[in-house]
């Protein structure tokens, strides 16, 4: 032991650098100005790339509005009406006065709400089971739930149509296919997949310890779910509802095949746009599109308000 001279064992991993003290690192030191420029370029690039999409979305909406404004004022100049007549004579009020569009609006509101409610009712238990439990075939189930998201919408409509050729569905096909229930079913088929995804993510983010505690306090599984987990998931449920509702409002492909596009019967707003375009009435088509945009915005604002109120109380 005494024969061993004291060595710099502690610095053994970097013998060269320790021997030379503060030896300059090979290459150049990064300069502050270069980093500054690089950061500026980085953010500028990202803002431009991301901003392109925002410009596209806002641009589309502005174009719709500009088109309608143009058409409204065209009417004034060509027919010599007063400026105040803008309120009663514009593409939206004309569309709203149309009995067929009125029917389409009501059916859209009712069918979207029904499909969103059913979607959430199915998504809550499904999301819970997938999030909280491991079971055989879970990955397969996960993949199956993605089918409605990745499948072309037309194929879903066609598949629904084919499904109702077989019992037991065939027995009720007369009351469903090309009838109002088919609208809800077609919307639900796609919307529910989005609701399930949202609910799974919601339950994933809730601390499972809360349920454990509830159970040690004397709760059954159902009580722990109802008293503890469900209130915690309230915002997620609202998001799932909004997403399912908006998805249902935009549904078109499956409806065209499975429900048909019969005016005053299975016509919803997306079908109205299609039908108006088909007869060459672009003004009406844009007006109905605008009504859809407004409906979607109202639902988004309402659910956000309910959600943020709830959060404020907390």
């Amino acid at each position, binding site marked *: 032991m005494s024969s061993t001279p004291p060595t710099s064992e502690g610095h053994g991993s970097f013998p060269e650098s320790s021997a030379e003290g503060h030896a300059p690192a090979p290459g150049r030191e990064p300069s502050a100005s270069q980093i500054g420029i690089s950061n500026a370029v980085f953010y500028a690039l990202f803002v431009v790339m991301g901003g392109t999409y925002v410009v596209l979305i806002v641009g589309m909406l502005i174009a719709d509005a500009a088109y309608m404004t143009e058409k409204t004022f065209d009417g004034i100049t060509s027919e010599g009406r007063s400026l105040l007549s803008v309120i009663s004579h514009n593409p939206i009020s004309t569309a709203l006065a149309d009995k067929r569009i009125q029917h389409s609006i009501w059916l859209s509101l009712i069918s979207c709400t029904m499909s969103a409610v059913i979607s959430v009712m199915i998504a809550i238990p499904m999301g819970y089971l997938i999030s909280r439990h491991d079971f055989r075939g879970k990955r397969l189930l996960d993949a199956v739930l993605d089918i409605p998201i990745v499948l072309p919408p037309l194929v879903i409509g066609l598949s629904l149509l084919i499904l109702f050729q077989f019992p037991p569905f065939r027995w009720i096909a007369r009351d469903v296919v090309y009838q109002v229930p088919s609208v809800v079913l077609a919307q639900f088929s796609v919307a529910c997949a989005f609701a399930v995804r949202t609910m799974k993510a919601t339950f994933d983010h809730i601390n499972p310890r809360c349920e*454990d505690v509830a*159970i*040690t306090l004397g709760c059954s599984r159902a009580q722990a779910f109802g008293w503890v987990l469900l209130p*915690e998931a309230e915002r997620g449920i609202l998001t799932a509802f909004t997403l399912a509702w908006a998805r249902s409002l935009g549904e078109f492909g499956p409806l065209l095949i499975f429900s048909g596009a019969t005016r005053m019967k299975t016509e919803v707003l997306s079908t109205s746009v299609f039908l108006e375009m088909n007869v060459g009435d672009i003004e009406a088509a844009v007006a109905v599109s605008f009504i859809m945009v407004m409906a979607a915005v109202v639902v988004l604002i309402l659910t956000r308000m309910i959600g943020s109120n709830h959060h404020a109380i907390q």
Partner: protein
Amino acid sequence: MIQIENLSVRAGDFRIQNVSLTVPSGRYGVLMGKTGSGKTTILETVLGLRDASMGRIVLGDLDVTGLNPAVRGVGYVPQDGALFSSMTVRDHLDFALMIRKTPKPACQQRVEELAELLGIENLLDRKPHGLSGGERQRVALGRALSFQPKVLCLDEPLSALDDDTRVRMCDLLSDVQKKTGTTTLHVTHNRDEAERLADYLFRIRDGQIQQVRPES
């Protein structure tokens, strides 16, 4: 009494085999060990949140091995408190009594008792959002004690607290345990906390439990 007899538990790839410990009635037991030593797994098995593959767990006079956690009568304070974000502090203290359909006046009395015991009278109408770490753990402790359990299980309840709060919470835990006489099993990796609180101190290392205090 908390009696763990020749317990074996499996949690994924992790395994604990043939461990035993006993905390006599009304005493404060601390199980100390490093992260990943399996102490939480043992606690969860006492609570019934994990199944024992072998061995026995006796709480009081009752063999609870295989019994549903809801009927074991064990109060549980997890590491992060796991408070219910939509409930007020009062609802937390009330919750187990509400599940037991306890009459309203008795609930109210119990809530007041607990709030006084834990010094959280001024928090009763608040929700967990915005409570400090120490306050959260007091609420979690009150919730666990609300139904007057025979046994209390604490899983690293003070690990997220700053040093001052930790010392104060240690005093509170010790005080509350003496007042209520609840047999307690507290799991921690903190030696100081263990030394301060334990009537019975156990150390888990390499899958073996060794009783440190009182020496067996």
